[in-house]
């Protein structure tokens, strides 16, 4: 039972949402799959729970110039199965790994981002496509790269009064494909112990993002540099993976995966992804 005492509002207009959100003690409610647990455990005590699902501007998955817009209030199941996200495969797959089907029907992509979890399944795919976050407040709008929005475990650069409106992914390059792999203790209804998203155009222009390796989901820039020196070889992939493994120091207290396990799995997941993305392709 939730014993907290708060007001509930579900405005239809973005302006009204922002006005309510500017007041102290307001807490945004998107899918509620995390918020209701916090309320039930008395870990938060908002004076106002502000349901953002009534605002049209926060909904929708549609093409925009140079890429794809996804509204913050879109359920992750919609992100997983929408025809337009299939060109951003690592995102669709990552979103499809969250919780279980029933959780995914409610949990939103905005919530998955704003929780700031290092193991957020939708975020590696977003980072692969250099996603920007669109933030709105009564003061106006600002857009910044998602990578800079993620500040640390449970911390994002969401300022008081701001609402995440949505994300914009940049369209893949010619022949660009991606893949998401994660490892968890049990298949389904578990959080990621380690995850990797890989983008490449054939065996070129690699992008790599990892979940649960660093304090935030992040791109593996050094490994990308090594791989993009080319020409691609298994040796080069091993070198790139070694650069990641040598640079991470996961905490031992994680209940989901030991540092040794994460380090052992990173090269494996990268290799699986590169092989899968180039299955059947011929390379000189």
């Amino acid at each position, binding site marked *: 039972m939730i014993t907290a005492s708060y007001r509930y509002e*579900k405005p239809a207009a973005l302006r009204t949402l922002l006005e309510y959100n500017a007041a102290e003690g307001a807490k945004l409610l998107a899918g509620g799959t995390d918020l209701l647990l916090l309320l*039930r455990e008395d870990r938060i005590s908002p004076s106002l729970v502000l349901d953002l699902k009534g605002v049209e501007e926060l909904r929708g998955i549609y093409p925009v110039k140079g890429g794809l817009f996804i509204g913050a209030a879109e359920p992750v199941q919609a992100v997983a199965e929408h025809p337009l996200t299939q060109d951003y495969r690592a995102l669709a797959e990552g979103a499809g790994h969250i919780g279980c089907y029933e959780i995914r029907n409610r949990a939103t992509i905005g919530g998955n981002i704003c929780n700031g979890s290092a193991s957020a399944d939708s975020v590696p795919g977003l980072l692969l496509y250099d996603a920007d976050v669109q933030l709105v407040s009564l003061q106006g709008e600002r857009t910044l790269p998602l990578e800079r929005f993620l500040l640390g475990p449970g911390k994002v650069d969401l300022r008081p009064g701001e609402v995440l409106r949505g994300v914009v992914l940049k369209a893949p390059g010619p022949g660009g494909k991606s893949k998401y792999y994660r490892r968890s203790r049990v298949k389904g209804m578990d959080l990621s112990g380690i995850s990797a998203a890989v983008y490449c155009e054939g065996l070129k222009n690699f992008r790599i993002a990892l979940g649960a390796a660093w304090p935030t989901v992040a791109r593996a820039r050094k490994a990308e540099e090594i791989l993009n020196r080319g020409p691609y070889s298994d040796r080069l992939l091993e070198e790139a993976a070694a650069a990641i493994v040598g640079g991470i120091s996961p905490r031992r207290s994680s209940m989901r995966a030991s540092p040794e396990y994460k380090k052992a799995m990173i090269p494996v997941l990268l290799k699986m992804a590169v092989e899968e993305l180039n299955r059947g392709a011929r390379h000189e």
Partner: protein
Amino acid sequence: MNRVPVSLVVNGERIRAQVDPAQTLLHFLRNEAGLTGTKSGCENGECGACAVLMDGKPVRSCIILAAEADGAEIFTVESLATDEALHPLQQAFIAHGAVQCGFCIPGVLVAAKALLERHPDPSEEEIVEALGGHLCRCGGYRAMSEAVRTAAAAMAAAHAESADGSGFKRGGALEYPKEELEDRP
């Protein structure tokens, strides 16, 4: 605290109420609507006992506020059976012995119903994916999966036979292939 006016349709019946903003949909259904078929299990969104259909999709009613259900169409496990007959899924669950203590079953049944609406002839993988978030401490997963397949086959056969296209024959038990049931250990 304010009272939130809600108007929703539960199992085909319009309900208007003023709800406490802290009340979950689960407790609204059980305590206000008197529909105790939906079970309160972990109340953390982990076990699936509280699953209901909300606008056609299975969701966990323990992590949804009643206020959020304003304007929604909800179906609970009570909507499955008619006065004359159990739903083909319920019949198949009985035939396969898929129900032991029964606590998880209301959630599993609505999840299975939604699955069969998405995939009338589901693969093993699709069944596991759809029911994978439902915890059964009696360990009846195998029998549940078989029951869903049996119900799917029965519904497809009934659909083919039914002149009115209602989906399955109402009134009277469905027949199940004998050998399939005898196969079970």
